[in-house]
């Protein structure tokens, strides 16, 4: 008995010190606060927009109508955000298609080609792009980008008009989803590039040297080691950019014609996105229309939330695998 009692393992406990507890408390509070705020926003939008979902059901998402009505039974209000939802997704996808190849090129240039003493200057300039207010982008897009982009649109329509996406019902090319997409591409370039650069900078040095040791060029090393290594991280960066593009309001509002019709012809002067719809209608909305705008906000909120969750999952997975 006595021997058994002696060999019983001693129980080890690690007590947290007071500073540990305080630090843990502060960090937990910060983490939970952001979750609570997120939940409160969702709850607020749901509470304010619930009536709309009850009245219109799924047709609020699938139909193409925004009519506040006259407030009585003769002309009832009808709301459906399908064109804005489609416009949001189309402009964001255009932004992604344009921005991601640029981001890859710029990130590789910064990490592997720019002399070290110039790298910080370039990186600061790119980061500065993220700090430019949306409205400035919008004004610049309207007055500088659009006159040029109209010419590009005409060329695309001329050469690739046989492709359904590049057809137009009338030869008006101003304020199209294409132009909005280009502007959004510029706006999401900093975040996408920044993530890509971060991932590419962590590409394994020994593998890169191994390619040189076999007589590969720098581009050979990038293609063999850096790009495959950074694939997951790049997808994550692109999704973060997409998250920003989906929610962009004022810049899109300035360069895109708000039309309540689902439009997949990206060069045509018709479209819109959920955020700019809310911005446009908010000031003069009746109480009932305000609820519809809240419901539209909730739809956008959910869309952005899903995109960001997918992004963080992909980034986490790529970090684990690397």
């Amino acid at each position, binding site marked *: 008995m006595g021997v058994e009692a002696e060999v019983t393992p001693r129980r080890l406990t690690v007590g947290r010190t007071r500073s540990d507890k305080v630090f843990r408390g502060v960090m937990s509070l910060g983490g939970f606060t952001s979750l609570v705020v997120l939940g409160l926003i969702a709850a607020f939008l749901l509470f304010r927009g619930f009536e709309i979902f009850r009245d219109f059901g799924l047709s609020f998402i699938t139909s193409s109508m925004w009519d506040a009505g006259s407030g009585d039974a003769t002309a009832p209000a009808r709301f459906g955000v399908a064109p804005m939802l489609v416009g949001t997704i189309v402009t964001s996808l255009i932004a992604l298609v344009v921005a991601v190849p640029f981001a890859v090129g710029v990130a590789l240039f910064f990490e592997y080609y720019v002399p070290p003493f110039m790298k910080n200057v370039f990186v600061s300039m790119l980061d500065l792009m993220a700090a430019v207010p949306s409205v400035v982008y919008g004004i610049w897009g309207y007055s500088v980008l659009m006159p040029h982009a109209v010419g590009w649109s005409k060329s695309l329509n001329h050469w690739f008009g046989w492709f359904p996406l590049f057809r137009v019902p009338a030869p008006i090319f101003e304020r199209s989803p294409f132009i909005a997409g280009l502007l959004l591409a510029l706006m999401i370039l900093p975040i996408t590039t920044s993530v890509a650069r971060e991932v590419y900078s962590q590409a394994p040095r020994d*593998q890169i*040297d*191994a*390619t*040189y040791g*076999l*007589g590969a060029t720098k581009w050979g090393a990038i293609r063999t080691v850096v790009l*495959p290594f950074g694939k997951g991280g790049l997808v994550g960066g692109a999704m973060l950019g997409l998250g920003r593009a989906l929610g962009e309001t004022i810049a899109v509002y300035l360069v895109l014609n708000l039309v309540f019709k689902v439009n997949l012809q990206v060069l045509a002067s018709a479209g819109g996105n959920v955020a700019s719809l809310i911005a446009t209608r908010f000031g003069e909305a009746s109480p009932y229309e305000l609820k519809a705008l809240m419901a539209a906000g909730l739809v956008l909120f959910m869309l952005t939330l899903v995109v960001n969750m997918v992004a963080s999952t992909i980034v986490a997975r790529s970090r684990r695998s690397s």
Partner: protein
Amino acid sequence: MTLIVRGTVGRGDFRRDVDLAVEAGGVLGIIGPNGAGKSTVLHTVAGIERMVSGSIVIDGEVLDGPGAFVVPELRRAVVVFQDIRLFPHMDVLANVAYGPRSHGAPRAEAAERARAALASVGMGAMADRHPASLSGGERQRVALARAFVTNPRILLLDEPFAAVDTDSRPGLREVLKNLLAGSTARVLVVSHDQADIEDLCGSGGVTRLT
């Protein structure tokens, strides 16, 4: 037809003086303690690092020296690294075909040469496997095939048996000796192990870094 490395290699505060020469088809051993700069010499000859001062000359062509630097892809120098460094996302055949592909060989020709090289190291049956599924000795054989398939004029072997267990070493040593016997490359071999070096270098000689 001689490779001559004469001058100082290193980076930052780390500097080592080097003076060595090796004939075509010759093997020169480099021994020395940890931190003597053995691997740095190999990396510098390959063009992965630059010389601090002095020059690397082969057949009268300056690869590295005052006002001259030939980039790695134009040196026809190949390194077999101490920690092997096969590309984990490629199968064995693609790993070995990588060198010829980098030098512009068409896909089919590169694959054919890679298969022949794998056969010469006894790895012909493992072409479809990935590096993670190979033993240390098998990986080192693939690494040797990957180096010799490019028919290099400079071959740099960094501790070629370090990542291999003692049972696999004799077989691997024989494979390497056969490959060296059929090669006209100027070979530099770095090792801790005096016996390994003497076995490979024959009459070529050994130089010691301190």
